[in-house]
């Protein structure tokens, strides 16, 4: 009984994965010596951006009037992209750091 149920669950999970048109992706942006790399990325709604801060400095990824992701020294931070558009972002602490995310619907 248990085995059967487990099999059904597994099967239905497989079906759901196959039915999804495209999986959400994680796009990585590294930060090295006060530079976002790559500085410009393209993504689609539902994707996630992961910033990997390799500096011994605290940075942020901040969209004016929007998202504000704190990126502690030598740590990562994430953001799920919820709306389409083109977003310029900066670091609040070092506004000469600049990046852009273009989000497709």
């Amino acid at each position: 009984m248990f085995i059967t149920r487990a099999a059904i669950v597994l099967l239905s999970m497989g079906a759901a994965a196959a039915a999804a048109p495209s999986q959400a992706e994680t796009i990585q942006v590294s930060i090295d010596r006060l530079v976002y790399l790559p500085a410009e990325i393209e993504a689609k709604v539902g994707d996630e951006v992961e910033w990997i801060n390799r500096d011994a400095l605290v940075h942020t990824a901040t969209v004016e009037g929007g998202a504000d992701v704190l990126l502690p020294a030598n740590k990562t931070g994430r953001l799920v992209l919820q709306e389409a558009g083109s977003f310029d972002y900066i670091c609040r602490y070092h506004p000469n750091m600049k990046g852009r995310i273009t989000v497709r619907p």
Partner: protein
Amino acid sequence: MTIKLTTAAAAIALLFSTGGALGNDKPTDPQIAHIAYTAGVLDVEAAKQAIATSKNKTVVEFAESMLRDHESVNKQALDLVKKLNVTPEDNDTSKSLSQAAEAKRQELAKLKGGEFDKAYIEHEVAYHKQVNGALETLLIPSAQNAELKSLLETGLKLFQGHQQHAEHVAAALK
């Protein structure tokens, strides 16, 4: 204001280029390390004064980021000089930076509230501009060791970021 700043940056260059004080056209790596380290320490001290004095959230947050960043970079600088077996060497530029910072500290100590905030942030803009000028025109071009040069270049990018951050805070205070 602009003239004053240019003069301050030029003063650093002059200390070396005239050769009077050091008898040399360019600072040596041990002197450069000392100047860069001193510049960081002085800004950390200014930040501590601001954190103790200011009641403005934006100003305190700015000061906290100066404290954090300059301590982090100076730690990297210390690690590097240890690795390179370089002993930072005191010099007239470091001395004049320290004297100017002490005078500014006393001047700021007489101010309170919004007046303090404005004067502190304006000084931070001016100070970072001055140090950036020295890094660009004198310290980076003079550095012999590649790792020291690279750390100074990262330092320049960081200090330019601080200058812009200070400019944003200054604009918000108006």
